């Protein structure tokens, strides 16, 4: 009997997470700036980790937890790589970058 409650709640949660992924993909398509798309991809990966956890409860398969953890690791690396790539690309393509709060070099100012 207790499986009925948990299965129903897991189904509702999977539907909510699917709606969230659809909304985030709308922003991923619309996003005017590449930074918007990076943020949307980051949210999609976090939502996928949540989806894997909910799927582990829904199917009763313990292996999905390991999949979720390793996917979270790889998704963080992907986000970091995309953000660094965006910043470096802008810095390489000339005068669009800034220097944020770096200690000022006195020789450079003279």
């Amino acid at each position, binding site marked *: 009997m*207790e499986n009925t*409650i*948990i299965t*129903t*709640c*897991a189904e*509702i*949660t999977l*539907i*909510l*997470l699917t*709606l*969230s*992924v*659809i*909304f*985030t993909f*709308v*922003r991923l398509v619309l996003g*005017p*700036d*590449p*930074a*918007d798309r*990076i*943020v*949307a991809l*980051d*949210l999609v990966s*976090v*939502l996928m*980790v*949540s989806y894997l*956890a*909910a799927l*582990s*409860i829904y199917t009763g398969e*313990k292996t999905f*937890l*390991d999949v*979720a*953890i390793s996917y*979270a*690791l790889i998704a*963080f690396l992907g*986000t*970091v790589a995309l*953000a*660094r790539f*965006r*910043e470096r690309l*802008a*810095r390489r393509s000339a*005068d*669009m*970058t*800034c*220097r*944020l*709060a770096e200690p000022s070099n006195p020789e450079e100012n003279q």
Partner: protein
Amino acid sequence: MMEWAIGILMISGGLFSLVASVGMLRLPDTIIRMHAATKAGAFGGGLMFLALAGFYMDLSITLRAVAAIFFLLLTAPVGAHLIGRAAYCTKVQLSERTRIDELAMVCEWCDTQSVSHPRPETGDAGQQPLP
């Protein structure tokens, strides 16, 4: 009783994820969208892992779930900081309702033609020099 707690945790996690995605869709600015995505998304994932730990009632599963929550809470600010830095340094369009741009004081643009970039005028607090 336990299954109701697990169900409530799962559904609230799903609702937080939905809030994150609706904020992703509706908020006006890249940096505000990043605020919605990282905080609410990581919190929803944490609630989901908490429900997972309560569902299995196993020591190894609970330890892995706690490690996953810790990892989510550790990496969300780091990723948000990197994306925000990249977005600000590539002069992403800020919202029209931005009133104070505090990074403008410490930010040293490489180009001198700062008239062209689409940044709204900062208020009085943005133009005060650093003490």
